[in-house]
């Protein structure tokens, strides 16, 4: 089972995971990752906005989930990604992978997150007292990707 979607409003990762786990008794392990808007001490960031491009963003996420399914024996994949304006503490992304054995679940979830961070069609900007500013790509995200060079 593959569920991949964009969330245009706040979502509840716990409720999503509860639903994902239902009927997945054959899975020996479900690994999930929730990304949320980070608040740091003294952080001037008031809000974060994620933009997407309709024709490419969701199809790209679906293709990524299919790559994970082709590489690891997964019993289920869940990918939910927020777009819109968020504040610190809000969930941005939820990835969950169910498999008979835990290592496949861990690796597939890790693969999905590395690609969502650096390859998926999202643009991010932050709001501070000075206004909104776009965030440029970070080289560490591309280094993360090189870990998966052997996955077709």
């Amino acid at each position, binding site marked *: 089972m593959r569920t991949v979607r964009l969330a245009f409003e706040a979502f509840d990762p716990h409720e999503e995971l509860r639903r994902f786990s239902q009927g997945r008794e054959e899975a020996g392990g479900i690994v999930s990752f929730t990304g949320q808007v980070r608040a740091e001490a003294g952080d001037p960031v008031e809000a974060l906005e994620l933009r997407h491009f309709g*024709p490419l963003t969701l199809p790209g996420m679906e293709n990524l989930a299919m790559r994970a399914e082709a590489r690891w024996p997964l019993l289920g994949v869940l990918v939910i990604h927020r777009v819109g304006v968020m504040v610190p503490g809000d969930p941005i992304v939820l990835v969950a992978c169910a498999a008979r054995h835990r290592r496949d679940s861990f690796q597939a979830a890790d693969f999905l997150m590395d690609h969502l*961070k650096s390859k998926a069609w999202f*643009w991010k900007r932050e709001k501070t007292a000075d206004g909104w500013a776009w965030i440029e790509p970070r080289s560490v995200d591309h280094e993360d990707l090189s870990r998966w060079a052997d996955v077709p």
Partner: protein
Amino acid sequence: MLTLLFLGRLEDVAGEESVALDMAAPATLAEIAERLKPELAVAICAPEVRVALNGELVEQAALRAANGNELAFLPPVSGG
């Protein structure tokens, strides 16, 4: 009209999310850029900017677009 969409930081360069140009005959990227303000023309022609014609990625050099088309300019993504 030919619709140009500017994603990410390109929206700031353009000053708006989209621009409509009257482009009767199919135009190359350079010809389209000529119709825009100079800093936007430079920004959309940068090699790291991907271009989608009617929602499909195309090579900058092969691009031809006219009225009725939508061109989206996609700068490098900044992650989830």
